[in-house]
């Protein structure tokens, strides 16, 4: 397909959509009997129809397929789930996911919090914050390429220079260069650092707002009592923003549970770095084992639900 043709298709699709929606609204405007009911149907039915066909039905279907074999032909009971929880390769996947979900929120929040406190009310606050926030704008694929280059490894031989920054730093310090992305289990930590790099901006923004909302009479009183620096941080700042901290931690945990792009781009899940969301893709769209992939998707759903419920409850409290 030529670019021109593609752009044409795009314009056509938007025009088609606008035409259909416009027609519906026009027709609805002419209805006189039970007008409100007809109008409201025209307003909500497009959304509800899309959600039922595209989200509710597929979710039920996936759950159903998780009890069937790889081609969805034969009922296998809980076999896919047993496989997920007993196969050694799958257990590595689950273990990696656990490491991701524990480390990423803690590290991102720590960095975000410290940075928010450090730059709070400084002269360069706005630009200092933009610097940390910018990684959130680019894709996880882009972030992965940036860091894959930092981790790049060249064999430690005469006449060969390192081109990855981290290995060059090791060489400058007198160490041997490392294959950061190849050696388990530390390679998972190096992947996690990419997610921390992206998520710290989110943590910083939310926590910075929470810090600014601390009533000044509290900080003033603490200062009169002689509290300063680290003690102020430990006894006043952190306790005051506890609800925001919990919201940030759980929000990042939810995002991390579904992390896919970084693993896919940097290692493809090889070298024992796979996580549930990546394994779902590999099983469902590469190996074409619908049974296992569906079981993994259901597992992801089951893991996300308690986190989201807790997150929403905490947000209510924080408000």
């Amino acid at each position, binding site marked *: 397909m030529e670019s021109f043709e593609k752009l044409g*298709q795009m314009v056509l699709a938007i025009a088609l959509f606008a035409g259909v*929606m416009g027609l519906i609204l026009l027709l609805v405007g002419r209805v006189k009997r039970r007008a409100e009911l007809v109008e409201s149907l025209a307003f909500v039915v497009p959304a509800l129809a899309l959600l039922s066909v595209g989200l509710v039905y597929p979710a039920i279907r996936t759950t159903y397929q998780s009890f069937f074999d790889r081609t969805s032909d034969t009922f296998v009971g809980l076999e896919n789930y047993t496989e997920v929880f007993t196969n050694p390769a799958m257990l590595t996947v689950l273990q990696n996911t656990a490491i991701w979900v524990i480390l990423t929120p803690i590290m991102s929040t720590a960095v975000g919090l410290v940075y928010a406190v450090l730059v709070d009310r*400084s002269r360069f606050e706005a630009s200092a914050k933009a610097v940390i926030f910018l990684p959130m704008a680019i894709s996880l694929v882009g972030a992965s390429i940036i860091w894959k280059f930092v981790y790049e490894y060249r064999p430690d031989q005469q006449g060969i220079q390192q*081109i990855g920054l981290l290995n060059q730093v090791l060489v400058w310090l007198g160490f041997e260069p490392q294959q950061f992305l190849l050696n388990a289990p530390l390679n998972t930590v190096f992947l996690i650092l990419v997610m921390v790099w992206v998520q710290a901006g*989110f943590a910083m923004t939310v926590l910075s707002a929470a810090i600014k909302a601390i009533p000044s009479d509290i900080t003033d009183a603490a200062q009169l009592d002689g509290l300063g620096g680290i003690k102020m941080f430990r006894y006043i700042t952190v306790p005051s923003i506890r609800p925001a901290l919990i919201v940030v931690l759980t929000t990042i945990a939810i995002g991390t549970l579904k992390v896919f792009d970084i693993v896919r781009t940097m290692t493809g899940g090889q070298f024992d770095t796979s996580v549930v969301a990546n394994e779902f893709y590999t099983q469902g769209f590469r190996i074409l084992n619908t049974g296992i992939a569906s079981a993994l998707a259901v597992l992801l759903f089951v893991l996300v639900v308690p986190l989201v419920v807790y997150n929403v409850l905490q947000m209510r409290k924080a408000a």
Partner: protein
Amino acid sequence: MSVVVTTAEPVEGIEPVTVSGRAKKRLSSPWASLAAIVLALLWTVPTFGLLLTSFRPQASIQSSGWWTWFSNPEFTLENYEETLFGGAALSTYFINSIVITIPAVVIPVTVASLAAYAFAWMRFPFRDLLFVAVFALQIVPLQIALIPLLRIYVDLGVNGTFWPLWLSHTIFALPLAIFLLHNFMKEVPRELIEAARVDGADHVAIFTRIMLPVVAPALAAFGIFQFLWVWNDLLVALTMTGGTTDVAPLTARIAELSGSRGSDWHLLSAGAFVAMVVPVVVFLFLQRYFVRGLLAGSVKG
């Protein structure tokens, strides 16, 4: 989700004039400044290194680190030329990204604002129950829908076109979009709507002439969030296109290059920045909306 939006300050900080503000400033030590600078460097140097690399000749990239540029400055646009128009053909994927993203923003924003208006201001059976259901759908991870959804597209015969991407992104955007826009529309004063009703305006007229202009900032914030989400998405792109030249976006192509040509840094560095330039421009010019949108959608997906 919505709560965070209202409590979060935009990135541009406001200089405080309180007593404690001035008092606190005195507490910051040189060590604190040093720590802040180190963090800021860790957050910028990796990107800067890759950006510099993308302008170095291929031979230099392979034989020396980008930091040697300062003693041996070189500049070329060849990497961009090759990555865009050579074997990597990123120009084609750039067009694909645009063709995917624009309808994947326009369609869900329209569908969602209609539904949000109905949930906020119209009366119909099961309204509250349905709204709770839509709200609850936000927690469904995309993964649980992807395999059956692809099946549906294959059965409909639209597989391999842009329709699976447009429709999937629309569907996945709706729960969050309806919820957010509903919250904004609900805050419009009741008197405004009732006055219009008394004047004989029907819901279609109220929606188009009163509601849309009033909630335009919210539409913009969500639109920008959705734009970046779709532009940066990899999962839907890979599963719904199979990575073909015809319809796959930049992210899918670059992730694929990272696997198949992982050491061709002249292609990867330039390619990564081709994909990043649009989000970064959006970020720089629409920062306020952008931050709000991102915070609001932080648990999406």
